[in-house]
């Protein structure tokens, strides 16, 4: 059971990572980041069976942070959209050196 769970989370994490790297739409990248976070959560839960409940405690923290991050991240994306009328990351390079 442990092996399957870890395999699933690995697959989910990879999908998320590939999504972050390849997509250009900020919303989708954002969702991919969430997917990566939840893949990690799954790993924590799965491993807590072996190493004790500390992993589950971590999951609660990660979810809290993810919720806060979602709020801030979405607000930023909305602000960017209002400013540039697009959420395509190729057009957003204000921090260019």
């Amino acid at each position, binding site marked *: 059971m442990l092996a399957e769970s870890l395999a699933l989370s690995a697959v989910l994490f990879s999908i998320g990572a590939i999504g*972050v790297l390849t997509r250009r739409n900020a919303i989708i990248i954002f969702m991919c980041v969430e997917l990566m976070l939840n893949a990690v959560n799954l790993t924590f839960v799965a491993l807590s069976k072996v190493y004790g409940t500390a992993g589950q405690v971590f999951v609660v923290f990660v979810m809290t942070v993810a919720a806060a991050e979602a709020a801030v991240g979405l607000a930023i994306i909305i602000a960017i959209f209002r400013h540039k009328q697009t959420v395509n*990351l*190729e057009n957003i390079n204000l921090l260019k*050196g």
Partner: protein
Amino acid sequence: MLLQEATTGAHPLSGSIAEWVWLIPLLPFLGFLINGWLSITSAARVGPKDPSAAGHDAVGHDHGHASGGGGHGDDHHPVARHKYAGLVSIVGPGVLLLSFGLTVAILMAMLGVSREAPFVRTLYSWMPAGDLHVDAALQVDPLSMVMTLVVTGVGTLIHFFSVGYMQDDPGYPRYFAYLNLFVAFMLVLVLGASYPVLFVGWEGVGLCSYLLIGFWFTDKANADAGKKAFIVNRIGDFGFLVAMFLMFANFGVLDFAGVSAAAPSAGFNSPLITWICLFLFLGCAGKSAQIPLYVWLPDAMAGPTPVSALIHAATMVTAGVYLIARSAFLFSLAPVAQLTVAFIGALTALFAATIGLKQWDIKRVLAYSTVSQLGYMFVGVGVGAYTAGIFHLVTHAFFKALLFLGSGSVIFAMHRAYHATHNQDDAQDMRNMGGLRRYMPVTFVLMWIATLAIAGIPIFAGFFSKDEILGAVFARTHESTLSQVSWLGIPGGGLLYIVYAMGLTAALLTAIYMTRMMLYTFHGPNRTGEKEQPHLAEAPWIMTGPLVVLGVLSLFGGWLNLPALLPLGRVGVLEHWLEPVVGPATNAVTGGAHELAHSTEWALIGAAVAIAIVGIIIAVTRLKPERLIPKARAPEEHGFERVLLNKYYVDEIYDALIVRPIVWVSRNILATGIDEGLIDKVFVTWIGAGIPRLLGWFGSRLQSGQVGTYAWVLLIGVIAVLGAFTFR
């Protein structure tokens, strides 16, 4: 300041009032803080200089009191006294008076006890660094007490004089702040128990000298004179520092007691001691205006006249003489250095006296006279007659302070007269004076006393001290350590005969130029001008009072150390007093009891007195004040007179040989070549600015602003790190 126990333990003075010696320099320092604070707080409202005085700057001389005489009837420019004048007039001289009182009290405590060992009052450990250990310590011994008495005593009188002289100057509190600070540093100088503490005072008085020479700094000539004094003194200070380094490197200590104990191990006439003494003397030559560093002192007359009296005649410039007397244990081991000191002193005495013959500015005559008399003191300490040198220092402090303050009183009167009639003429030029005895009788009589004292007429103070120096030079020509060595190939005894002859000649010239000054200033008809004459008047009592005290001291100061051959027997108060400090060093030079025969001594005294009288007679018979023409219409001098008037062109020679080459090298090689060419271009522009700019260019290329790129870079980085861990 911590009240720690004195380290000397069972010294007879421990526990007495001498424990409070640190208050002596501290009191003037507190005066400096109070007056300085008053000066700063009032500076915003009162400008740096009274604008109404600006019209009187044409001559570029002593004119700060140009608005003087506000209270004397000529209210052409009624200038209100400084708002804090009352408080400053109490604090400024008051702290000096307290210091003087404390000094007298300590002196009284010393009278009853043994004075063999100095009493060292350690305040705290100042520089405990490795092998170097220097305490902030003050030393009470007969020599430092003599100097402290002179500094606080004469200083107090000059502070009182300044109350009158500077009364209407807008910088009144600033003046007293500087003057108090000067006295504080001077007291640190004479009371310090080690060379570094002495050096702190040494540098401090240099600073105050600079500040006070340039006191009226709105006039560029005054500011330049201050800078010149400061820079020339730096050359001397370099010598002093090198001497201290040599002492520390070879003896490992820097306090007087330690060096005195360690020095004999280096050996008599050893190159080390000779070099230390020569470097010390370089410092003294700077501070005490000896050849070749004397050039700053005549220019220092740009300061207020009481400053000239206190700093540039009575106290600071004698610091070099004090330093040599203090280092007597070193100099007595180095006869070659002693001969150098004596010869340079005699040369300076003679050289400056010749220049003094032809100066027209009353203060410049006195300035060159000071240089000349300092030369005398160096002859004294140079031949190992430390008591005689210090004796002349003390009597010179009396009569030269009197001369300067008297000239200040004259200038004060002249300036008031010119100010009242809006005349732009030079108030310091003797050609514009003449016949002043009718207008200022008190100053006239007192100035003559000082003149007779400096000329070396018996009874007056200068006679005894000058005679003692010349007698010592003569005595050292035989059977002393000095006569056994040779100096640049000249036998020491022969050199001392030359020094003696130069000293006598300088005495002759001194009598001539001082009489000349008196004749031109006070005798003959008045040349100030018809309109100005009614305005000439004696100075107020606050100025004449100190003059009277100094006059009494100039009359009787010589009795401190009467020669042995008088029927009274030897009344060598000063010699007996200084014996514990300089006695051993003097005996080391003379090889024990070696006194001149009385007949020889009478002959020497007779020669000295005859020379002085001849000088006065020459001046009186040859100089005709009646024929003198006021400055504005005076003809140009010719020939050698012109050379003397221009001070042998020494300033011009220094300018051509030293100043200009240094400026040229600084400007064209150091500034343009090294600073701008090498440092600015190569190090700053190329290396300092170029390399960061290149790195920045690469760095900014990496920062594309594309989140996708960052993510890829991050991923590659993570894989690289993981890979490194996995396939380690």
